[in-house]
């Protein structure tokens, strides 16, 4: 296990080993001591650090009284495979609908809906309490309103 700790601190363990070694490090005091010693050796060789400083016990004691920190998990990113599967399903559905539509005899196609110009009375000023609201709404909607209605005699396509 100590050899794996050595490789872990060098960033040379495979991702599937990292969890196991980290678990062992957290579970066994002797292994976490080994982790500290190996780091100390590196700092000493590089002469980079106050080698005598050791606050682990004091920090650990203070953290015992601290509430455990818990962060909400970040939303999992949608995996590319799933995203592509969803896109493929959409494309397949659209293709199926198109194929069914093209398969019909053109003569049997019926108009489901048709646009009918709206008469001017639709835009007549509205009186009553809701007038300001409706006026504002009409203003925001613009003048290009088209009423869509079922044409007389229209059949629903099968």
């Amino acid at each position: 296990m100590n050899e794996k700790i050595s490789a872990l601190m060098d960033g040379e363990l495979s991702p599937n080993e990292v969890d196991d070694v980290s678990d062992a490090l957290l579970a066994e005091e002797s292994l976490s001591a080994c982790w500290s010693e190996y780091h100390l050796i590196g700092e000493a060789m590089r002469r980079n650090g106050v080698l005598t400083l050791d606050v682990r016990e004091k920090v650990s004691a203070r953290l015992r009284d601290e509430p455990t920190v818990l962060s909400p998990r970040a939303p999992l990113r949608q995996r590319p495979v799933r995203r592509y599967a969803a896109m493929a399903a959409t494309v397949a559905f659209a293709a199926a609908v198109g194929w069914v539509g093209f398969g019909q005899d053109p003569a049997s196609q019926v108009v489901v809906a048709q646009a009918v110009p709206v008469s001017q009375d639709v835009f007549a000023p509205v009186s009553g309490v809701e007038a300001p609201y409706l006026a504002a709404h009409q203003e925001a909607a613009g003048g290009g309103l088209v009423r869509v209605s079922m044409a007389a005699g229209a059949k629903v396509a099968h």
Partner: protein
Amino acid sequence: MSERELDQQLVERVQRGEKRAFDLLVAKYQKRLGRLLSRFIKDSADVEDVTQEAFVKAYRALPSFRGESAFYTWLYRIGINTAKNFLVANGRKPMVHAGVEDEDGETLDLSSQVPDFHTPEADLMNQQILATVNQAVEALPEDLRTAITLREMDGLSYDEIAQVMGCPIGTVRSRIFRAREAIATQLRPLLDTSKDKRW
């Protein structure tokens, strides 16, 4: 998995409620953070207190850490702010300020003077650790010494060391581990961390 990714993984374990994972980050960074803070604060006892306080603050702030920067960069910033607050609270001015680049190449505003950590006892212990490690490295067989030196001093990856030494990566991993164990064996009596009595 890089060192930064490993730190991030430990951070995420702390964020999921595993306090012990924070101990590993403390063990990893305390001496480097202490060295940084000793550039601000001369007294060794104060450096120790501020280092401890910085780690506690970092722990409390961990829920907001999202990994946009490296953990150590984030930790060093907390350490510097803690040191500045300490100096202000004690009516002292930080020593000479200078821009110092951290390991990400970002400039940290800190004092660059007085990098020492002087008490006679701490100084003696520091010298003893350095001497022991140096002697242990010198005493290593050449293949182990080369591997550990390329790793710790030059920062080469195992793959790069394998190319330099003309051996498989598995051999490099084994040599570095054996070198560390050999040095640690010399160091443990000094630290009083023999296998049955460790820190």
